């Protein structure tokens, strides 16, 4: 792991999330609630949830094979936050391959055009997520530690 990366993008991981709702907007809300509860991030929950939902409404972020990459912008952060949650629930996401989603990579992006380096890290993550091997690795990973390792590799 290199320091520039851990300094670049924060990550929050829950390897076994249980969602109360099955409705996308509520799911976003539950994810944001947990992040705000468990970290020092002070996010305007309504703002970020609405922005993620707005993006989702443009076109589904479920890109196939059970993975989704919803994203939105927040004016309260200065560097991106990657939230990774896995669940054993099968969430309806209107995904491109019509399969339900159980792995969510939620990207929270600074509203002010953040530093290019950070955005580049996110685009690299997105790029690698299309790789079947990477998808399989994420699917197999069960612990927070393992998911963190994978994320660090992808953000590197």
């Amino acid at each position, binding site marked *: 792991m290199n320091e520039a990366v851990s300094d670049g993008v924060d990550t929050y991981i829950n390897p076994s999330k249980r969602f109360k709702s099955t409705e996308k907007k509520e799911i976003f809300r539950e994810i944001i609630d947990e992040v705000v509860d468990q970290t020092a991030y002070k996010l305007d929950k309504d703002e970020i949830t609405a922005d993620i939902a707005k993006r989702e409404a*443009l076109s589904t972020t479920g890109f196939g094979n059970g993975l989704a990459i919803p994203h939105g912008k927040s004016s309260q952060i200065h560097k991106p936050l990657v939230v990774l949650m896995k669940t054993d629930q099968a969430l309806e996401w209107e995904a491109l391959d019509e399969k339900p989603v159980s792995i969510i990579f939620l990207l929270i992006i600074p509203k002010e055009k953040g530093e290019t380096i950070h955005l580049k890290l996110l685009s690299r993550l997105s790029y690698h997520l299309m790789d079947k091997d990477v998808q399989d690795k994420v699917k197999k990973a069960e612990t927070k530690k393992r998911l963190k390792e994978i994320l660090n590799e992808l953000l590197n």
Partner: protein
Amino acid sequence: MKIAAVTACATGVAHTFMAKRALENAAEEQGHDIKVETQGATGIEDKLTNKDLQEADILIIASDIKLAETERFQGIKKVNIPVSDAIKNSAGLIRQIEKKLNEE
């Protein structure tokens, strides 16, 4: 085939780059050369040069937004698709293009 492509999406952080990878994977699997330019939140990357575009058999534009510097793309055969189509089925798209070009 030599393929040139441009990808772009609304936020310019996720789908632009997923489409790039999907197109690259599909082209490589089918034995084609490809170069994919991204027009994302960090600007134009892997920019297509005039030479790239002149040598390409086809230009795939996988975009949900208005692109920048499109003068470059004049005078070349193009296929326009939404960015999600590239993520969903680049392999099918490239096979179709090859078939069409062979028929001409």
